[in-house]
């Protein structure tokens, strides 16, 4: 990239199973007000203020057509530019970055918000399936993920214990993350004894229902340097669509992620991600996904996700800590999760991650997924230089 785009401030709500006390706007504003206060920025067209907001939410989850109406006042979009991206939050950051690089905006606010507690997960997810061939079968994302988990585990001999280790690691990491919803001291046995949801996925292999919001401010290189002493730069980014039809894919592969990662690494000049990255934050709605996504991200060979977790490389203190924040398994709403991954990378790269700080982190990867079995994969590489 000719120019660089910096993230100058990030904020999150604490993720929570049921924020019944707040509506969507109030929830989003908890994160928004922090980034506004931290930077002292407001909306204005003169080049010194925020001139655009990219919001990120889903009409189906808000239960409202044009769900960005819920946050209009709170993002300061009065007579200003606002756009809503209806995918996972990484894609909103990607969009905000494009707005800056296009030269149209110098400073952009982006916010993702979702209250999973207020909708019926199965009914909403079922509405994403082809209505003729798939929806009538009664599928939801859990069912589809279970089909993927079974295929993946069968093809590469991944074990339930290896998947459970992800759940143990991430919920354990969450103990040091004040934003996490489900910090837990659990063992592999706890996971394997937890309730079977859809074989082979058990309760503790799955992320909990979660409410929350995440906001950040992006700026052009010149503005970013003025706004903060610790800008975090977006060095590479891409996303990629898989086909909709589960039977058209080998679910043990994640080709869209391979493509997205290759492009993001290329932009960032990363040739050996396992060596060069200091940490990775990946969106694992289910424990098997962290292993599969590791393969897609090229952090291990195909089918070696299980070995990777066994080796301890992805533990805190390992060569490449994965999900120091606790990841999605510790509780993030889908749609916000990818932006929460970016936020954690920013905190780590700014050396502001408290007890879970990865020492000397300079290069980090954030990953987000949208849709059925990771149908839209997004990868962002962030760094301090």
């Amino acid at each position, binding site marked *: 990239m000719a120019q660089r785009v910096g993230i100058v401030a990030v904020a999150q709500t604490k993720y929570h199973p049921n924020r*019944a006390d707040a509506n969507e706007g109030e929830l989003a504003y908890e994160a928004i007000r922090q980034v506004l206060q931290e930077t002292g920025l407001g909306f204005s067209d003169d080049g010194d203020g925020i001139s655009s907001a990219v919001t990120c939410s889903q009409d189906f989850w808000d*239960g409202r057509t044009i769900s960005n109406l819920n946050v209009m006042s709170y993002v300061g979009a009065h007579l200003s530019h606002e756009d809503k991206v209806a995918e996972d939050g990484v894609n909103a950051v990607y969009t905000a970055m494009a707005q800056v690089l296009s030269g149209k905006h110098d400073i952009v606010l982006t916010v993702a918000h979702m209250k999973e507690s207020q909708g019926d997960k199965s*009914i909403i997810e079922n*509405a994403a399936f082809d209505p003729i061939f798939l929806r009538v079968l009664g599928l939801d994302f859990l069912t589809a993920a279970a089909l993927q988990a079974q295929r993946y585990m069968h093809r590469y001999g991944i074990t339930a214990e290896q998947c459970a280790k992800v759940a143990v690691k991430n919920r354990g990491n969450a103990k040091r993350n004040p934003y996490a919803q489900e910090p837990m001291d659990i063992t592999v046995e706890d996971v394997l004894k937890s309730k079977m949801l859809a074989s082979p996925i058990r309760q503790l292999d799955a992320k909990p229902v979660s409410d929350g919001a995440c906001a950040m401010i992006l700026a052009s290189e010149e503005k970013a340097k003025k706004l903060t002493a610790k800008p975090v730069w977006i060095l590479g980014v891409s996303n990629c669509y898989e086909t909709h039809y589960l039977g058209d894919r080998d679910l043990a592969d994640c080709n869209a992620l391979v493509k997205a990662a290759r492009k993001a690494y290329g932009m960032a000049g990363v040739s050996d991600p396992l060596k060069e990255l200091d940490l990775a934050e990946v969106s694992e709605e289910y424990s098997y996904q962290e292993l599969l996504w590791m393969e897609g991200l090229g952090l291990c060979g195909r089918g070696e996700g299980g070995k990777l977790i066994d080796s301890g490389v992805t533990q805190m203190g390992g060569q490449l800590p994965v999900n120091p924040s606790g990841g999605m398994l510790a509780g993030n709403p889908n749609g916000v999760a990818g932006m929460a991954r970016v936020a954690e990378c920013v905190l780590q790269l700014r050396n502001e991650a408290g007890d879970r700080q990865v020492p000397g982190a300079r290069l980090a990867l954030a990953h987000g997924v949208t849709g059925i079995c990771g149908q839209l994969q997004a990868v962002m590489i962030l760094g301090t230089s």
Partner: protein
Amino acid sequence: MTEKPGQELLTVEIARPRPYRWSTGKYLGRLYKEAMENKRLVTNRCPKCKELLWPPQAVCGRCKVEAGEDWVAMSDKGTVIQYTYLVFPLWDPHYGEKLANPHPTATIKLDGGVYMVHFLEEKDPQKLKEGMRVQAVWKEKQEERGRGLGDILYFRTIEE
């Protein structure tokens, strides 16, 4: 450019209501409470422009400042600014049926200053006019209230 005749074309009908538990949040919640308990309309005032916000909320969108807790009670009387009425029934997505409400919809300027959209009791188009004075007719039983503006059945024409 035209559909080929003769081929049977199938459709799949799906009627699956999506349930939600929407929260009023803190600010709109205050309006709900006052309506339910006291048949009273309240809202908060922007500290900068001093205008009443409607619905009550945490931020004044126009001034881009936090609105705070300057709460004001308003009269439930007002003046009709505009009205319209449905000639064809529309599907109500929140009831899952054709909207049967025969009441005209009006924009009413409450005496407190805010503009509110609600139903008029008067159904005869000949008797509707802009500038007519109206007052809220509340649901009598407290146990039926607790739905914010839904605690008002409609606005009745008043003589003053």
